[in-house]
C-alpha cells in the first residue's frame, strides 16, 4: 500500500485514476463478464401471461423480498371496449398466489407483469442526493445499500411505483434485474420460473440475442412513454388502458 502511494505522488495525476480502479477492484461477476459489452432490458409478452404468479414468488425467494413489498408484481386488467379510460385493476398481494377465477363477461381481461423498467434516463437516479442509486454501465439501475440514506426521494420520483423502503434495512430497494445472476450467464429468477415465456431477459448489445431480434421485428411499447424515462422493459401487446 505505502509503495503504491509513493508512486502516485511521483507520477502524473493520471495515475491517481488508475489508483482508484486498483482500490475499487473489479465486480465479482464471472471473470469473463465485461460491463460495457451489455445493455440489459426485459421483454414482457402480455398475450402469454397467465397470471400464475410464479415470477412474483420466485423473485421473493431469490431476493429475500420482504412481505408486503414487491420487486415485481402482476396486475389484472378488466377493460370495457367502450371505455378504455376506466379499467378495473387488481393485484392481490402483488399476484403472488395468482388471481381469483374470473367470470366471462363482455369485457376483456389480461395480465400485466410489472417491475423496475431499468430506465436509461431514470428519474429515480436523478434525484438521489448522495449517489446511492445509479445506472450501471451495463444498463441495470442498482441501489448501493451501504450508501443509501433512506430518504425515499427515489421512491417518490419513480413513475412506475417499483421502489420501496426495505422495512428492516431502512434503505431503498427494488428489482436489480437479478444482477447477481445475469452477470454469471444465468437469466433472472422471474424469467427462469415463468412457465409460458411471458418474461424474457434481453441484451440490447447482443445482435444474436433472439429477444433483441423480436424487439426489432415487432411493435412493442413501454409504460408511460410520455415520461421519457428511456424505459427498457418492453411490452408486446400492451393495451392502451394500462396505467
Amino acid at each position, binding site marked *: 500500500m505505502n509503495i503504491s502511494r509513493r508512486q502516485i505522488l511521483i507520477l502524473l495525476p493520471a495515475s491517481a485514476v488508475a489508483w482508484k480502479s486498483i*482500490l475499487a477492484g473489479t465486480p465479482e461477476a464471472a471473470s469473463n463478464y465485461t460491463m460495457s459489452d451489455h445493455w440489459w432490458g426485459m421483454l414482457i409478452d402480455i398475450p402469454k401471461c397467465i397470471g400464475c404468479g410464479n415470477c412474483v414468488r*420466485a423473485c421473493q425467494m431469490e431476493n429475500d423480498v420482504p412481505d408486503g413489498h414487491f420487486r415485481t408484481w402482476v396486475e389484472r386488467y378488466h377493460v370495457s371496449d367502450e371505455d378504455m379510460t376506466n379499467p378495473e385493476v387488481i393485484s392481490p398481494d402483488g399476484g403472488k398466489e395468482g388471481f381469483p377465477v374470473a367470470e366471462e363477461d363482455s369485457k376483456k381481461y389480461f395480465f400485466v407483469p410489472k417491475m423496475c423498467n431499468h430506465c436509461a434516463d431514470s428519474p429515480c437516479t436523478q434525484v438521489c442526493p448522495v449517489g446511492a442509486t445509479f445506472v*450501471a454501465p451495463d444498463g441495470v439501475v*442498482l441501489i448501493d445499500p451501504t450508501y443509501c440514506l433512506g430518504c425515499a426521494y427515489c421512491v417518490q420520483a419513480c413513475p412506475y411505483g417499483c421502489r420501496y423502503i426495505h422495512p428492516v434495512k431502512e434503505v431503498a430497494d427494488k428489482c436489480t434485474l437479478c444482477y447477481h*445472476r445475469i452477470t454469471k450467464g444465468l437469466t433472472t429468477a422471474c424469467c427462469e420460473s415463468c412457465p409460458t415465456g411471458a418474461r424474457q431477459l434481453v441484451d440490447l448489445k447482443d445482435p444474436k440475442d433472439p429477444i433483441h431480434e423480436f424487439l426489432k421485428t415487432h411493435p412493442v411499447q413501454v409504460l408511460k412513454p410520455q415520461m421519457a424515462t428511456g424505459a427498457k422493459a418492453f411490452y408486446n401487446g400492451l393495451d392502451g388502458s394500462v396505467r
Partner: protein
Amino acid sequence: MSALKDAGHLFRFAGLFVLAFLLFLVIRHFVVPPSFGQYGHYRGAAMGEIAARPVKFAGHEACEACHSDVADAKKTGKHAHVNCEACHGPQEKHATSDDPSATKPQLPDSAVLCIRCHTASAAKPKGFPQVNPADHSNGMPCDTCHKPHNPGMDAGGTN
C-alpha cells in the same frame, strides 16, 4: 490601515470559516469510499458486491446437466419450455451440493401446483389449456392421467 484594525473581528469570523473548510477537506479525504466516482457518481465497488449475492435458483441448464432423461422427456411435450424450478422451486443448493441426494427437492403437490396455472378463468388467454378442476378430474390428482414432465394425454408412457 486603521480600517483593517477596526475590521479585525471580521477576519476572525472569516478565519473560522477557513479553518472549518480545511477540516472538512481533511475529513472528506478519509471518509469518501475509495471507489466512489470510478464509473459515475456512485461507489464503483457496489456493483461487485451486488453481483456477489447468493443465487437460489440454479437455472434449468444446471438441472439438465444431470437429469438429461427428464430433459429428453420434456423436449417433445407441452411443458418443453417450462423450466424445472418453475415447479420444483429453487435448487441451487441441490445442484451445487457434494451430495445432491441429501438435498433432494421435495416433490411439489400436484393438487396445489397444477391448478395454479391451469384453473380455467376468463382472465387467462383463450388458447391456454385450462380446466375447471372440480369438473375435470372429479377430485383425482392431476398426475393420475398427466405426467408432469410431458403432460399430453397422447404422450403415452407411464413414466
